[in-house]
């Protein structure tokens, strides 16, 4: 019993520690998406295909918003006047829509090529 638990915990820690140096946010291509007046800016964002990227979503409004996409399966809440990092990809080339869950009239898309 203890062996299982110890093995599982050590593998989990190994995963985390091993992962950190391999995927530091500074190494990944980074893109900024801002939310202002419940609209995305830019509404069209181009990212490289088959590459893991970080999208920094900055919420310039005072109210909370959620960055969501069913095309690339992410949903993340951004509280007012703050920012979050969303790891996206690697995605094959194409067009992927995203929207703001609290104000779904705000839409944008990723162009992946």
């Amino acid at each position, binding site marked *: 019993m203890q062996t299982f638990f110890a093995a599982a915990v050590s593998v989990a820690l190994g995963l985390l520690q091993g992962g950190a140096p391999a995927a530091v946010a500074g190494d990944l291509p980074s893109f900024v998406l801002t939310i202002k007046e419940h609209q995305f800016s830019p509404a069209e964002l181009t990212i490289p295909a088959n590459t893991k990227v970080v999208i920094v979503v900055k919420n310039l409004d005072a109210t909370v918003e959620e960055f969501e996409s069913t095309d690339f399966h992410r949903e993340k809440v951004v509280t007012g006047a703050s920012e979050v990092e969303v790891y996206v990809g690697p995605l094959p080339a194409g067009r992927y829509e995203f929207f703001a*869950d609290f104000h779904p009239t705000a839409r944008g898309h990723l162009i992946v090529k």
Partner: protein
Amino acid sequence: MLATMIVIFREVLEAALIVSIVMAACKGLAGRNFWVSFGISTGLAGACLVAGFASTLAAAAQGMGQELFNAAILLAAVAMLSWHSVWMARHGRELAQQAGSVSAAVVAGTRPLYALAVVIGVAVLREGSETVLFIYGIATSAGADSTGAMLLGAALGVILGIGAGAALYLGLLRIPVQYLFTVTHWMIVFLAAGLASQAAGFLLQADLVPPLGNAIWDTSWLLNETSIVGKVLHTLIGYVARPAGIQLLFYAVTLIVIVAAMRILAPRAANGGKAAAIVAGTFLLCAVPPIFHGDARADFKVRSPIVDYREIEVETNGALTTRRDFGETFAIGAGVLPWWLVELEAETQAAPGERLEYAATTLESTFQFTPQGKYWADLSAFVEYSKAARHGDPDTITFGPLAQMETQEIFHSPMLHSANILFEREAGSASSGRTGFSFAWQSRFRIDPLFEPGIEYYAAIDDLRHAGAFDDQAHRAGPVMAGLYSFAPYGKIKYQIGYLFGLNEATEDGVWRWRIEYEIPF
């Protein structure tokens, strides 16, 4: 000299490990030493031959002769190991009981042993040919390093490699006989799967099979295959740092075929549950939702490690078996921190023909360790405390890791793979100290947000102290369909529905399972 020693050590180690496992697996069988020696000597002779004709071989078959040769002998070894596994499953129980007695030796016969001689011969041949070539290259080259020193390094490497194999053999022998057969039996099953995946690698190099996705995962940062530990794991379980899809396919198919053949041809399988659980538990890294007990707690779900911060979720999970056991749970939860989801769940059950009863109240937490998508898998920890409502039922604590991984290239479709590994411990006054284990896996194709078809597998061991044979555990698998529909900004509804086929004696023929969930941000 040191570099040479390490290179030779790694080559010899691989063959020595295989020889040791095979020898331990055949302990007590008549003629074992003869057949093992025969295999080793034939392998060595063959290695010299192969080394001698190395350039001819490499040029043959449009330059793919070496790859074809390696793939062919590896697949031959896989076939022999599979035959051995099935044969041992049929006769292992009798042998375990009678091991050491003269009649056992007679009963066992020598039929599977020459198959093992082939396996040993192949292992020695593969590693031996590379070693011979390397040593020949040292002996004939006029290099800067002293040839004598390098030959000494090679000799030391051979001795160390054999020594490591001997240590494994002696270590294996210390396992009590009734477990020895089953431990080595399962090691051989994983060995065969690993060899099959190596064969796939050579066939891929020879361009005879499609890759089905390159580098399905990349764990070279965690453990490199060329390191000693990596090489040991590579031999024992077929660990590959950047596996191609075809390698994983060969690996999985080999495992499935051997285990299926064992079940079909040896219905009263040897006492292997505990060893299998140890081996499987150490290797696998996924979680399974709750365990299906004999007293009909049946909620099947594959939990996601992702915490939706600032969202409230309301969900119901249900299951109905072909024996008419029914269970339904109702839960409400919230992502209160970006990395913490807390849920309160009410569980109800109905035994066949009985009324629906309130069974338990559960408090669950999921702690998300890694940001979604940042690493090759998303990892979380799950823990729950379940308070039984019926008098005499024990409370339980369940805990374990949850993981999921997205892939893009397999079968040309985005996929989501999830796994849960959970341990369940009885607690409180009605506890019998039972510790159970469960595992769940789900892979689904993300072809459309509303329709994501996939497959699932659930395994459960009710009590790790009595892990029992395969037939005393619970194994189920089947298709599943999942999807979601968004009513933004009024939330979204998610569903899953699946049918699980009971795979062994202890499970019912089938279970319908379903899940409906409503989420809304707050």
